[in-house]
């Protein structure tokens, strides 16, 4: 699986790829273009030029629905869930199961929600019929991630999944991220926290000022090298912007 981008204003020719079954971390300073990159793939922003390849085939993504159809899901750090709706309703938001008369079929939706949460070992949620407003930060993040799994997605982007969480909840979410990779999904983890990144990622892509500075294997690099790449663009490929 390979994706590449041409010159979007915030992205000056970024090549980025993620393979099935790996956790790819996407790091970079503020304004490096991480969010823009995600939004392009999710169909929220359109790309000016360049192409997206999915399983080797060029695809066009014009909206969130197109991305969803391909099996690309983005889990945002905020604003991803409706507080007033319950867990099941959020998991199926925008893709409800209904009969030809648009009547909702609640039972199968609830059943699969329960099964999915169980397969990810999310056990702290008491009832899938409680409003998301009553859940803790970690539980909410778990619901958002589980939503990605429920839809048999093949590429999952996680945008700062641990930014607002405490220690125990961060633990929960990182375990979840690992499990996603083990289940054969392609996982892209966007994070500022290099400890988190080094714990779960297989490879690390560093962005700087809208350019790809380099891709590092986790086992063959160090935190210091990544920090240098983020701040100075000291890439081995020498692509750093001035």
């Amino acid at each position, binding site marked *: 699986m390979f994706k590449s981008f041409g010159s979007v204003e915030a992205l000056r020719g970024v090549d980025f790829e993620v393979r099935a079954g790996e956790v790819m971390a996407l790091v970079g300073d503020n304004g490096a273009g991480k969010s823009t990159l995600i939004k392009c793939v*999710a169909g*929220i922003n359109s790309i000016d030029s360049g192409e997206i390849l999915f399983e080797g085939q060029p695809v066009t993504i014009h*909206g*969130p*629905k197109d991305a*969803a159809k391909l099996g690309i899901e*983005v889990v*945002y750090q905020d*604003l*991803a*869930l*409706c*507080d*007033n*709706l319950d867990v099941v*309703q959020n998991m199926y*938001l*925008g*893709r*409800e199961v*209904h009969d030809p*008369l*648009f*009547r*909702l079929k*609640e*039972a*199968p939706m*609830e*059943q699969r929600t*329960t099964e999915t949460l169980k397969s990810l070992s999310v056990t702290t949620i008491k*009832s899938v*019929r409680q*409003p998301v*407003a*009553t*859940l*803790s*930060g970690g539980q909410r993040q778990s619901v958002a991630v589980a939503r990605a799994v429920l839809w048999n997605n093949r590429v999952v982007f996680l945008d700062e999944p641990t930014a607002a969480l405490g220690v125990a909840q961060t633990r929960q979410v990182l375990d979840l991220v690992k499990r996603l990779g083990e289940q054969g999904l392609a996982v892209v983890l966007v994070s500022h926290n290099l400890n988190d990144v080094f714990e779960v990622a297989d490879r690390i892509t560093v962005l700087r000022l809208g350019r790809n500075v380099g891709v590092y294997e986790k086992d063959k690099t160090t935190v210091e090298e990544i920090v240098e790449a983020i701040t100075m663009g000291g890439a081995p490929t020498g692509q750093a912007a001035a």
Partner: protein
Amino acid sequence: MSSAAPAEIQAAAEDQDSLAAVLRARWEALKGGDVGNLPVIVGIIAITIFFTSKSSIFFSAVNFTNLIGQMAGVTVIAVGIVFVLLIGEIDLSVGYVSAVASVVVAEAQPAGTNHDYPGLVAIGLAILAGALIGAAQGSIIAFVGVPSFVVTLAGLLISQGIVIKALGTQGVIGIQDQKVLDVSNYILTKNTGWIIAIVFTVGLAAASFGTYFSRRRAGLPTGNIIITAARVVFYGGLAFAAVAVCNHYRGVPLVGLIILFVVVLGSYLAGRTSFGRHVYAVGGSAEAARRAGINVKLIRILCFVISGAMAGLGGVILASRLNSVDLTFGGGTLLLDSISAAVIGGVSLFGGRGRVSGALFGGLIIGMISNGTDLLGSADWVKYVTTGSILLAAVTLDTVARRRQAAVGR
């Protein structure tokens, strides 16, 4: 999807469904700020007791029939308001939109003119006019992003202008068409009344038990069957009681059936369809809804279309009740009563919370206060102060409930 659930889930489901567990869960929800219909039902009972103790006429078949006619217009308009409130918007234009609709129905029906349409066509045109105004307002709100408060305030003024222009110097149009007059004045036969009560109860039972058994088949928590049955008996009993009281006088007014139909249809739309789910989602978080691929603009426009159409129907009901349309139509407290009815019925002004049935309960409370104070011969100020206080209490309750819910979350 019909495969049986693993045994442990089934066992857990049964655990959650014992009577004690269900009541405990309900109590927790109550503490967490989810008060449901409880305050409004308590309010209705309290108001009934108060006025019954003050006036022997209040709790009578004649007055009950009268009350249904009085609350009909406001309640139907309030159902439309519920949808707009659910997406976190407001519609200030409904009062005068209903006046425009009543002018349309009045202009479309007079015998001997060149546009003397059959009554039902005239009614359809009136509702269509309301829906079109709603669509126009909704489009400006959704596409341009002008706040709904301002757009519908402009809509209020423009609609009022249209009414003044249309009524011209004569200032009043009488309603002659029998079909239009029937809307608020026709009384159903006593047997028809019973049939309505039976159909309502059977429908409610089918829906409730259908849900119960399909969930049980799927091995999901079902809620307690006794509580399900009790709810069916309670609401079914209310329907039979209402019919019995009406039949004690002349019978159920047609407009009562219209209220029931609108509320049931609205509840179905909001609670059981994907459209309704998207309405709640937009009210909860428009950004999350958009990212989930929901067409937020379309949902917004449709909610204003519903609000406009319901205002149109409300206008027809009011015109039919008054037998005419004049320049005072749509003014007064109609707008504020309609919004108050929805809010008193537990629909949140912040969007995303509340039920369509709240419009019925809220409309009933407002109708009862108005009716009761009239019976007591109280001055108008009593009516206004009472309605205002109840509205304030309802909004306060909503705000507190919201804060509690957030507090439970983190």
